[in-house]
């Protein structure tokens, strides 16, 4: 029996979909059977981030309404045997699926997969309620900004009210040099405020834009620092004890210069 994990944040644009794609791909690269479920009905995006947008025939609404069998809607990834996507519907809205239907869907999926990872839409309305309905564990993504941390706090409260205890936190787009300069909240600052356990920290990395442009998750790029962070998180989810990576390496002027003149 697999595990159902929801990736959520409250605020939009903090990196839920990127996180889902990368952690999911990371887990598949470790040899696990993984399905990624896009619950952002009406604004689907996980398919393009994964580079699977041309293969969609059926979607989550088709499955929950019985228009097709579950297996027919699952899209197999090009790179990993064990990685699958259940896409969101693009032409319907969040009310097309109910929390009860989501619970049933998750129960069916976890019979087939080791990890069912749910990409939650922004907000705290029906889409959020659907996304968390069948989940057993929750991961909250935030960035080191007051607006994102505030929303993360609200989401943690709502998750706990829904019996999803002890959610894990991902701090995305951290800029260690800005923290050092006193111009960005640090990991400890944010953990202090939110009082939750950390799953991982992703340094700001331009390569995320590049990999997303190409539809290839950053975990597959060995040189990508953010990809490294996501690989570590996938291993932590799978139960390994992995220390936080050194965020400052590669971030300074000297290493940038080295990169520029081809030393690295």
């Amino acid at each position, binding site marked *: 029996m697999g595990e159902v994990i929801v990736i959520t944040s409250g605020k939009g644009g903090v990196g839920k979909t990127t996180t889902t794609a990368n952690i999911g791909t990371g887990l598949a690269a470790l040899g696990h059977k993984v399905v990624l479920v896009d619950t952002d009905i009406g604004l689907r995006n996980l398919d393009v981030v994964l580079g699977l947008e041309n293969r969609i025939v059926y979607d989550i609404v088709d499955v929950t309404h019985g228009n097709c069998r579950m297996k027919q809607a699952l899209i197999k990834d090009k790179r990993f045997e064990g990685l699958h996507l259940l896409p969101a519907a693009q032409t319907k809205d969040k009310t097309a699926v109910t929390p009860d239907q989501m619970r049933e869907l998750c129960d069916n999926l976890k019979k087939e997969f080791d990890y069912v990872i749910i990409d939650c839409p922004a907000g705290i309305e029906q889409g959020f309620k659907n996304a968390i309905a069948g989940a057993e564990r929750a991961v909250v993504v935030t960035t080191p900004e007051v607006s994102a*941390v*505030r929303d993360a*706090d609200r989401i943690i409260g709502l998750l706990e009210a829904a019996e999803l205890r002890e959610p894990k936190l991902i701090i995305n787009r951290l800029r260690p040099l800005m923290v*050092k*300069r*006193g*111009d*960005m*909240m640090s990991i400890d600052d944010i953990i202090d*405020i939110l009082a939750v356990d950390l799953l991982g920290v992703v340094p700001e990395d331009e390569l995320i834009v590049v990999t997303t442009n190409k539809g290839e998750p950053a975990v597959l790029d060995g040189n990508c620092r953010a990809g490294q962070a996501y690989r570590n998180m996938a291993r932590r989810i799978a139960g390994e004890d992995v220390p936080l990576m050194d965020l400052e390496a590669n971030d300074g002027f000297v290493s940038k210069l080295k990169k520029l003149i081809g030393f690295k």
Partner: protein
Amino acid sequence: MLDFLLRVFGKDSGSSRNVAKERLRLVLVHDRADVSPQLLDDLKEDLIKVISNYMEIDEKALEVNLDTSDKTVALVANIPVLRMKRTGKRAEKIG
């Protein structure tokens, strides 16, 4: 060295990082105090149970509210006492 420079330029205490932390702390005090009426009702019931061990109170007139002012949140309860119980809980237990 960096710390020294930061102090020289007076960036340490007034840094935007600390401003962000302090603003978040305040805004979350208010956000988190925004509890549901259900929770307040549950709290009221529990309060009545505990206090009734020691005194007789007017349950209908009991008021419990969260009072949020600028920087703090206080739980304000107004509990009219009808009669003190002479023995209290401990005496009851022994007896």
